[in-house]
């Protein structure tokens, strides 16, 4: 397995007086695939994503991306390698979709530079690839949740990174919009890019991902292909409720057992 990001023995806490959020965590993200990170609320998924990005520095352990340690890259080099679609992106000013997506060119421009013709072309191509060219002139805050998620992804396409990190990209979306996002991620992976997404929906994860990471209380409890990770035992244990993993016509599906209310 070709890995693009690897973590070794990561410990992390937000403050020296706080308890550990991640403890002794080791992880490998395969290149050119969609990886899904699953786990209960508050288990450290977003923190893990921020460590993969290089935004948070672990208190202990080694993080590598494309063969080099995160700290050996400049901020700008790192931003040409890894892009982020955060869980909440509050945009206090009403940028148009196009103005926002164009910001994806920042890693290629110095702080005093304006985007040039090439940058504008790349932004247009990204909008087209995400299927939202028709929204270009619309204000970002006035489009639907599903469209906004596509806008964030188009912004990262404009960034032209090898790795895309997404924090719960399908949360609050209806099934059609979930499908749009997940298919887009699959197409990206088919084109050689790497995507890492956190999610609370195992079925969405199964739909898009080839590699799975199960987290519980700041540790990895399983990682690998779907059959090894998404099992009745694993899920029932980390969520502490009876969960059944079924196989129908070769397709794996996760269901909550009925009649076992907490």
């Amino acid at each position, binding site marked *: 397995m070709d890995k693009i990001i690897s973590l070794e023995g990561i410990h992390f806490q937000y403050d020296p007086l706080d308890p550990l959020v991640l403890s002794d965590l080791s992880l490998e993200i395969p290149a050119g695939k969609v990886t899904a990170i699953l786990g209960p609320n508050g288990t450290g998924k977003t923190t893990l994503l921020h460590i993969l990005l290089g935004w948070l520095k672990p208190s202990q352990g080694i993080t590598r991306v494309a063969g080099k340690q995160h700290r050996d890259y400049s*901020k700008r080099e790192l931003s040409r390698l890894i892009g982020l679609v955060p869980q909440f*992106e509050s*945009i*206090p000013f*009403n940028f148009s979709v196009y*103005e926002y997506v164009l910001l994806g060119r*920042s890693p290629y421009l110095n*702080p005093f530079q304006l985007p040039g013709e090439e940058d*504008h072309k790349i932004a247009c191509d990204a909008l087209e690839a995400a299927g939202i060219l028709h929204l270009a002139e619309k204000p970002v*805050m006035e489009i639907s949740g599903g469209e906004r998620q596509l806008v964030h992804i188009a912004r990262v396409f404009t960034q032209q990174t090898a790795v895309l990190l997404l924090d719960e990209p399908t949360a609050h979306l209806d099934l059609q919009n979930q499908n749009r996002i997940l298919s887009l991620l699959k197409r990206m992976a088919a084109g050689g890019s790497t995507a890492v997404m956190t999610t609370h929906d195992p079925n969405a994860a199964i739909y898009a991902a080839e590699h799975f990471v199960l987290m519980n209380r700041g540790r990895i409890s399983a990682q690998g292909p779907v059959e090894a990770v998404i099992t009745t035992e694993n899920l029932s244990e980390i969520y502490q409720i009876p969960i059944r993993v079924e196989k129908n016509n070769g397709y794996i599906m996760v269901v909550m057992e009925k009649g076992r209310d907490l």
Partner: protein
Amino acid sequence: MENQAYRRIIPFLLIGIVGVFLASILIGRYPEPFWMPWRVFRDDPLARQLVLKLRLPRLITALLLGMVLSAAGSVLQMIFRNPLVEPGFLGVSQGAAFGAAVSILWLNRHPLVIELSATFFGLLALAGAYFLSTRIRYGGWVLRLLLSGVAVSALFSAGVGVLKYIADPLTELPELTFWMLGGLYSVTWQDLLFVLPFALLGIGVTYVMRWRVNLLSLNDETAFSLGASLGRERLILLLFTVSATAALTAISGIIGWIGLIIPHIARRMFGASAEKSLPAAMLLGGAFSMLADDLARTLLPGEIPLGILTSAIGAVLFIYLMISMGIKVRSHG
């Protein structure tokens, strides 16, 4: 994808600001209220002296004041992700007022001494707010600096209150009060030379970083993922905009509302991206400030303090924008 309105309107704005500048040279109360006919300017040596020695430095200062306050307002609203921030909020205005009061009461009433003292205390307030924000152990960068700014502002404002209380009511208090109401009535070429480097640096740095400002308005982790050196870039912008504001406040007194309202109007006309709205805000702010100063010195036989006029006009515009949904306040994280 280019913003069509921007391309169409900017040339008009440029012509407009030059027009306002040229007209303002002839607007005043000499030889008679409101307008100096061209032949008077040509034939009357006293009129020419008045224009060259008094009106011109005042006019250029008004232009710079409007440009700096609007540019600073635009930048600070964006990097603090808060559309209600204005250039004086980090304690700079109150710090400068305190500095002016200290100078009037205890140091010297020479304008240059007042300016230096006001600039010094304005920057001291900024440094104090910044230092305090690094000592707060919770909240994001925006919240910490906003809280520190409020606290430092309140401290200096209390200090100003004390100085007003002990000021000599016959000599010092009127001067102090008039300074705080804000005005450009005493601006000389020397004052202008004092603020020029601060103003030009402030305007220049924000202008060249105008696209980057958009990036700094995003969530911290998103801006980081796009390669921004958040601390350094924000500090550069803060330093240049706030020191320009402090220097101008030192000679103009506290001029409110320009830095708050003009950026809103510019964003409404040209969209949120600072690439376009920031230069537009500078031009609109320059023109607004020159026009307000024209009114301040011609409307009544005596001078109306500029700060009162900008507050009155600014508040009315603000109410209009609010009612017509021009100000769109979103959640800020």
